């Protein structure tokens, strides 16, 4: 088994006739992904890059057996697009769209849970397993099949680090860009068990950022439940103290959320911490050579 996507993944692209939808349909196909359908209401019956376009997700599922969706539709319509995918029984939905109001995302997240949907994003690069499938927009050039898993809150920084892993001669099992929005469908803590159970992953790279407490919660999970070696990098250690969101924000985060607290928590959980992005590949190689678990 693998993490969320494999060779049986059949992708429907929601918003396929838009610029991003079309460009990334080509890229996903070049990656080797089975892109079986596109959906744009009113454009049913046409084709984009050889992919049949349908008016609704339900129709796309009925005719093509699509079992994963990637959403490119603009923010004001993203919630509706997601409901449509969830109601059509799609179990995995990657939301690439940015600027979705978090109140919408709260609704989408809980609706997805009711319908048994694994949501990735929004505002995320998505998921890719080299040699199997890609549902999202991570550039194809950074990948090579291998045994290193990657989870990240960033976009381009993920590409940077995944590329570094390739350049040192290693490869990736599955890479998930979770997105950095206030509410995301899949967090580090949601994704960690998937990598723990994945027989194709030997080591996990975790890429975090300052702000929020997701890395601290990941550290808690790693300490108690994760047996594979972890290499972590946190961006933003030199950033000046950011603006806090009023008094309530300070109470909610309870003094966590800085680079220092995140690094300390991850180190205490047994992760190897990289000071800079270009240190990650070397540390990965080292941990793999040392073998064993945390």
């Amino acid at each position, binding site marked *: 088994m693998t993490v969320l996507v494999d060779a049986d993944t059949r992708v429907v692209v929601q918003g396929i006739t838009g610029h991003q939808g079309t460009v990334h349909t080509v890229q996903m196909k070049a990656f080797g992904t089975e892109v079986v359908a596109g959906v744009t209401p009113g454009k049913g019956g046409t084709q984009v890059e050889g992919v049949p376009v349908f008016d609704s997700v339900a129709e796309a599922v009925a005719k093509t057996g699509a079992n994963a969706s990637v959403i490119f539709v603009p923010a004001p319509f993203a919630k509706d697009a997601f409901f449509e995918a969830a109601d059509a029984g799609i179990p995995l939905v990657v939301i690439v769209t*940015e600027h979705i109001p978090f109140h919408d995302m709260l609704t989408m997240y809980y609706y997805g849970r009711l319908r048994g949907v694994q949501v990735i994003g929004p505002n995320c690069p998505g998921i890719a397993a080299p040699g199997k499938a890609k549902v999202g927009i*991570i550039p194809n050039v950074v990948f090579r099949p291998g045994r290193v898993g990657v989870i990240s809150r960033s976009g*381009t*920084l993920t590409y940077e680090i995944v590329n570094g892993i390739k350049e040192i001669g290693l490869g990736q099992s599955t890479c998930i860009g979770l997105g950095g929005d206030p509410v995301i469908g899949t*967090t580090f803590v949601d994704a960690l068990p998937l990598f723990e159970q994945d027989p194709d992953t030997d080591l996990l790279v975790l890429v975090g950022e300052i702000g929020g407490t997701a890395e601290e919660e990941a550290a808690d999970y790693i300490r108690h439940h994760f047996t594979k070696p972890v290499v972590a990098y946190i961006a933003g250690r030199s950033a000046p103290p950011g603006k806090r969101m*009023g008094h*309530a924000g300070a109470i909610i985060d309870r003094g966590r959320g800085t680079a220092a607290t995140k690094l300390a928590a991850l180190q205490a959980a047994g992760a190897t911490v990289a000071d800079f992005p*270009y240190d990650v590949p070397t540390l990965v190689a080292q941990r793999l050579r040392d073998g064993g678990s945390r």
Partner: protein
Amino acid sequence: MVKLAEWRGKEVFRRYGIPVPNGRVVRSAAEADELVRSGALVLPLVVKAQVLAGGRGKGGAVKFASTPEELRTVVSGMLGMQFKDETVKELLLEPKVSVGRELYLSIALDRSAREPLLIASGQGGVEIESLNGDELVRIDVHPFAGLAAYEKRRVGVAFGLEAPASKELGGVLDSLWRAFQQEDAELVEINPLAVVDGHLIALDAKVIIEDDAGFRHLEYAEIRDDRTPLEEIAREKDIAFVQLDGDIGVIANGAGLTMATLDVLAQFGGKPGVFLDLGGTDDPAKVTEAFLLMAKAHPSVVFLNIFGGVTRCDTVAKGLVAAMTQVPDADRFPIVARIRGNNEDLGRQILQSAGITALLDLKASAQAVVAAERARPAGRAAT
């Protein structure tokens, strides 16, 4: 985010049925005079500077006036006053009331719980983070269920109010929840929620609206935080633009890569002065826009760090070279460019033949940037 001034926040509260004082906003002493003379406002009044920063009471931004002369003095003194980073342009005048108890209520997003969090305290009117955890009631509110009656009773028990205030509390909580959801707020806060003559009334209002919901809240479009002109241009072009105190300009794509770039520069002793985050894009037109914007900030040297996704590096490189021809000679600055991704070798050749330092390695690039900065006199940071 759009932070609403107190009076706008109170307008929101009023619309949702939360009691607020009958106040008026003035922008001149003459306006204040006229309101009192016409009987629209009755002395004594409280005069509150409409600034967004906290600590107004201690900072002289909230004062009282009991006579027309006193009102004129207070209003004239406060208008135009500098409070922290803001200039006072508007004052809220409200009837002075005799406050019994002061309470605290807020709703904001708890990211890790993925639920809105209601915070209540019987000790309002103070900086809420100064209170101990056991003085706060924290209730995660499920967005599908809203505030349940038993949760409202918990707040009631914590407040220990008497009638009629005790009977009004449920309505205030419902209204606050509806305002949070329907206005797409990041934060709704009442501090203090006061008991005046036995009734609840919101004496302050802090409301922050989420930017991303702007498409369905056009009424907030006109409200802007004070931004520098450059920050305003950047906002229009959907480029994140931040000015710090240093001379190096940084252009990167994506928040994580931008932060990592700053981290690496800091490691080698570089001080970033301005950074532009293009977002998760490598669109050549946006790179051009960013360069022209950066030129206006007069950096000593610019570090361009782009990880090309779908757009090819040669396309980005051509956009960069084109942008440089549009920058006036007087504003020229050295550039170190690092563009990774598809066709990176071709991109590097194009840049090098245009006389731009182009590297692939992040560490080496950062070192080149810092060396270039030290080789030059200090630039002028724009304001």
